[in-house]
């Protein structure tokens, strides 16, 4: 009973549990190599863009909205950063800051459309996705460009004993923690929890949504920059998978799509879970596939099947996330949560 209560009261717990499970399986299939700093570094540096995208998505989902355009926004940031540095020979700092600004502006645009035009965000961001990927293609019609090796080796390297990407993620987490201490942090959850109540309490929900999308755009911009540093190049199609993957990470992390419940901790765990799944599948097939006869020629299909199935299994853990009360069978007082239950 206590465990059940615990599960239901910690928004991010499903994500942590899933991640712990994935880590254990990963250790089993990878062996002791897992426990090397280099391994952690590679996991974090490769997955930092998804982690950041998941954080960006979480903030929007907390307000009860969704952002499909995160992937194309990351692409736009990537192409702008590369174009300015390579074609116009701007300094890296300037071009990357400009790209970050562009990512934030896309967030502002989404916010304006969702909050003030009141178009359902699923469709609004589906439309902006088209606009933004068009812009990315216009900025950089074909893949190319490079990032100075100092930048990408710093990105993939260490800083004071920890992988650089861990610091980057920690900075964003700290930033969000500070924002959460401001009223806006509460308002974001209030708007997602019950928009009408938030409004009746005097909260300007349009501004809250605009803020959430703007912040999300900013973090998406950082995600795009992480992707640029990881890939060290520009590509007008590179961010495509991040839109839906970031949503999957958010759900895996225990945040509920209807808003108001969840947190970025879970989403980070969810994103890492997705990263570890491809790791697990890699090691399973690298270390053990040879032992099973008959899957040699088509093994690559089964890699996909396996990782898809693991992800579905993870999603089923959404059972543990509490829902908005649905009124059937009197759940006004939650089971085991009334005074006399303890």
């Amino acid at each position, binding site marked *: 009973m206590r465990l059940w209560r615990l599960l239901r009261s910690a928004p991010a717990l499903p994500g942590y549990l899933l991640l712990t499970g994935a880590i254990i399986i990963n250790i089993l299939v990878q062996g002791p190599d897992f426990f090397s700093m280099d391994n952690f570094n590679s996991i974090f540096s490769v997955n930092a863009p998804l982690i950041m995208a998941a954080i960006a998505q979480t903030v929007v989902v907390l307000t009860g909205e969704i952002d499909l355009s995160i992937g194309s926004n990351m692409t736009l940031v990537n192409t702008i950063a590369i174009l300015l540095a390579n074609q116009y020979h701007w300094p890296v700092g300037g071009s990357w800051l400009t790209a970050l600004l562009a990512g934030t502006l896309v967030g502002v645009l989404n916010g304006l459309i969702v909050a003030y035009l*009141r178009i359902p965000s699923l469709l609004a961001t589906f439309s902006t996705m*088209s606009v933004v990927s068009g812009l990315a293609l216009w900025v950089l019609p074909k893949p190319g460009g490079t990032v100075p090796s100092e930048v990408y080796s710093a990105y993939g390297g260490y800083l004071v004993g920890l992988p650089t990407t861990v610091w980057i993620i920690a900075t964003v987490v700290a930033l969000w923690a500070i924002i959460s201490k401001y009223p806006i942090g509460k308002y974001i959850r209030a708007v997602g929890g019950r928009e009408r109540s938030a409004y009746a309490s005097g909260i300007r929900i349009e501004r809250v949504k605009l803020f959430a999308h703007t912040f999300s755009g900013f973090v998406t911009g950082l995600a795009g920059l992480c992707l640029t540093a990881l890939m060290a190049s520009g590509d007008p199609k590179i961010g495509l998978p991040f839109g839906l993957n970031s949503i999957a990470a958010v759900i895996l992390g225990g945040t509920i799509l209807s808003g108001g419940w969840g947190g970025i901790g879970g989403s980070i765990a969810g994103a890492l879970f997705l990263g570890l799944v491809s790791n697990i599948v890699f090691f399973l097939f690298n270390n053990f596939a040879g032992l099973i006869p008959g899957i040699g020629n088509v093994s690559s299909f089964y890699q*996909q099947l396996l990782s898809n*199935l693991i992800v579905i299994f993870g999603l089923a853990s*959404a059972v543990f996330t509490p829902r908005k009360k649905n009124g059937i069978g009197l759940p006004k007082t939650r089971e085991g949560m009334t005074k006399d239950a303890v």
Partner: protein
Amino acid sequence: MRFNFNNLNFKPGSGMQRNVMAAVRGNQMLMALFIALLLFVIGGFVSTNFLSLTNIGSILSMAVLLGFVAAGQTLVVISGGEGVDLSVGAATSLGAVLAVEIMHGQNNAIIPALILIIAAGALIGILNAIGIIVARVPPLVMTMAMANVVTTVQLIYTNGTPTGHPAGLVALIGSGRLLPVLPWLVVIGILAMVLMQALLRHTTYGYQLYAVGSNSNASYLAGVRVSLIRGGAYVLSGMLSAMAGFWLIAYNNFAFVNMGVAYTLPSVAAVVIGGTSLAGGGGSYSGTMIGAIVLTVLGSLLVVLHTDEAGRQIINGVVLIALLAAYTRRPPIRQ
């Protein structure tokens, strides 16, 4: 029964209101239709041939294909509960792949192919329904994950490359025309509209589907088996989408893995532009078909306009935003 007092002198639901409500509800579809016509006219300015009967026929048959994929989507969106089915594209692809693999050009294999396609679609729907209703995974994510699995299954089934082609009769229907403006596919589309209308308006299932979408708790307490109705929407969606795959290869004459995926998000857009609210409980399939026509005309128009791919995508997005802003805005909280 007899009541001997009649002091009900307050009348909040006055006559005018109903007319306005009906007009507004009708309006979304009318408006979509108007926009479709407007886009045709703009196309006519770009190129006079755009308005030729042949071209209108071609656009309509392309729209019907999108409309088929959006059929199941319509049911799922009506069923409410944040319902959306992102596996329609994958189910369509699977239907297409199965269709060519089983038919292999033989007319007498049409029936077995149809049976298998529908069964496969139903299986996808059943798995979606189990995930969404039993494990309570949000529909958006469950169907997205299911789409990935279905894609992989196609790869394993076909070893990456579907072989075969549709039966002659099927290909004839898929690409032939009754009149220049009336391809057979459009006739099938009209038939589908009639059947969907019958399902939604003239069966108890459709009746209960709207009820569940409008208020699932109330329906549950009135004895409606909400899980079966809502789950049924996903199962029907899988079946209808797989059938859409059948018509897709009828039109295209060939199949490849994942050929329907490009229809996934447009199917949601078609449903919404056609006047079905994402909140559930309302809407119609004829609206969805009109939404599909709007999107298809827009796509065709962008092809004949003088822009490059980047420009096309940008204009596409901006026009979509404008369309959505014109009539799918949520009401403000403050009235």
